[in-house]
């Protein structure tokens, strides 16, 4: 069965420093992977997705994610964190190649300190 794990409940980083939010997955077949962000009192917003091709995927707000097949990881990264990046981040994997149904991780809260 497909699954996704976010091993850190919270990540703290100083403004201006690089940030990484970790995600690992377990799928049969090719993985289709997503990152979403949730700001307080809002729904989730799509950041980026990996379907195939280049292992480095660029998304919204300066975020990018690196797909690593050998380590079954899809970590979210940003070179220079902003206080406004503080939010809840969710990694998700598609349940199969022919459906839009996703399995979400438990979320990682990113706190960026001034």
């Amino acid at each position, binding site marked *: 069965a497909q699954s996704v794990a976010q091993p850190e409940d919270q990540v703290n980083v100083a403004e201006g420093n690089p940030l990484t939010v970790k995600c690992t997955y377990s799928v049969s077949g090719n993985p289709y992977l997503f990152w979403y962000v949730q700001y307080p009192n809002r*729904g*989730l917003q*799509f950041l980026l997705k990996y379907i195939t091709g280049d292992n480095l995927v660029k998304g919204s707000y300066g975020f990018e994610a690196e797909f690593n097949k050998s380590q079954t990881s899809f970590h979210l990264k940003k070179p220079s964190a902003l206080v406004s990046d503080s939010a809840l981040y969710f990694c998700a994997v598609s349940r199969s190649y022919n459906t*839009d*149904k996703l399995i979400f991780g*438990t979320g990682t809260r990113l706190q960026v300190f001034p």
Partner: protein
Amino acid sequence: DVKVTQSSRYLVKRTGEKVFLECVQDMDHENMFWYRQDPGLGLRLIYFSYDVKMKEKGDIPEGYSVSREKKERFSLILESASTNQTSMYLCASSGNGLIQPQHFGDGTRLSIL
């Protein structure tokens, strides 16, 4: 921009009541989803609809039902509300084509007393 609108941001109901949560999307999307979000558990899929009058159970359908009479509207129904259904409920939609991003509403925080 896709807009997914959930009818209520906050809702308080009593145990045993029948509760309706409404969701409307304005982008002619085929797929619509209902999730509940609980701390430490992430998002869990309750029901999924891929067309008008079509629905599939998700991971936690017990105690819930859904209705999709029109393409733009997807309703979640709590047949007899219980306290363990207190949660944040999120509606989402996605369009045609494989592996499309889901677009979310802002959620309904439901409290069952």
